[in-house]
């Protein structure tokens, strides 16, 4: 599962049988610092309460259809929860800050294009450090 931001809705009159009444939302997947990562996609809303602007988590692949009332529908991404908070656990971070995506790794290492946002690799919010 991954975090995502709902950024729009999809209106479709003619759909595959089984998709009637299923709400379709456009979502932007996020990394764990809530920065956009990857391309936007359409996901079915399995909680019936997600709307634009909301922070959600979604499941992909066959499990997405399992989240729907009828599990035999052509759905490959489904929103399965609305996020109240993403809590960073105390002691989870190593000294020197969090291992932000694309940071602190040797040149040429890691996946190319893992951070495709073009933004500064610095986290947008200051991180709490454990007090000495």
């Amino acid at each position, binding site marked *: *599962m*991954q*975090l995502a931001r709902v950024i729009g809705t999809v209106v479709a009159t003619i759909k595959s049988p089984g998709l009637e009444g299923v709400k379709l939302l456009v979502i932007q997947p996020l*990394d*764990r610092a809530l920065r956009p990562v990857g391309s936007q996609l359409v996901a079915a809303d*399995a*909680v019936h*309460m997600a709307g634009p602007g909301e922070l959600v*988590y979604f*499941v*992909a*692949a*066959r*499990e*997405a259809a*399992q*989240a729907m009332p009828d*599990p035999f529908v052509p759905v490959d991404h*489904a929103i*399965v*929860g*609305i*996020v*109240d*908070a*993403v*809590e*960073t*656990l*105390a*002691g*989870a*971070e*190593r000294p020197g800050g*969090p*291992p932000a*995506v*694309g940071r602190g*790794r040797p040149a040429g290492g*890691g*996946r190319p294009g*893992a*951070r495709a946002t073009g933004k500064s690799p610095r986290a947008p919010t200051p991180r709490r450090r454990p007090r000495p």
Partner: protein
Amino acid sequence: MKLGRVVGTVVSTINAPAFDGRTLLVCDLLDPSGRPSGGYLIAVDSVGAGAGETVLILDEGNGARQVLRAPGAPIRTVVVGIVDAVVEPSATGARHRRRR
């Protein structure tokens, strides 16, 4: 299966019924030497993993539902173990034991 490090939790009150009472862990994915490889996953906890621990993540739906005894649940990613050490054979033939 994948190696990960638990870095946080996701708090959610409105979710699919299968997630009621389950802990969602935010896990950075690691390469075998323990460095973050860039990605992350939100996984359902099944072993009581805690902050900063290196864990074994199962990212496959059928196995995940068997582990959780939740047939039909829309769950694919489960933390199934807590890693004590990863042993890597080195070029010299000596065995390095990396403690977590």
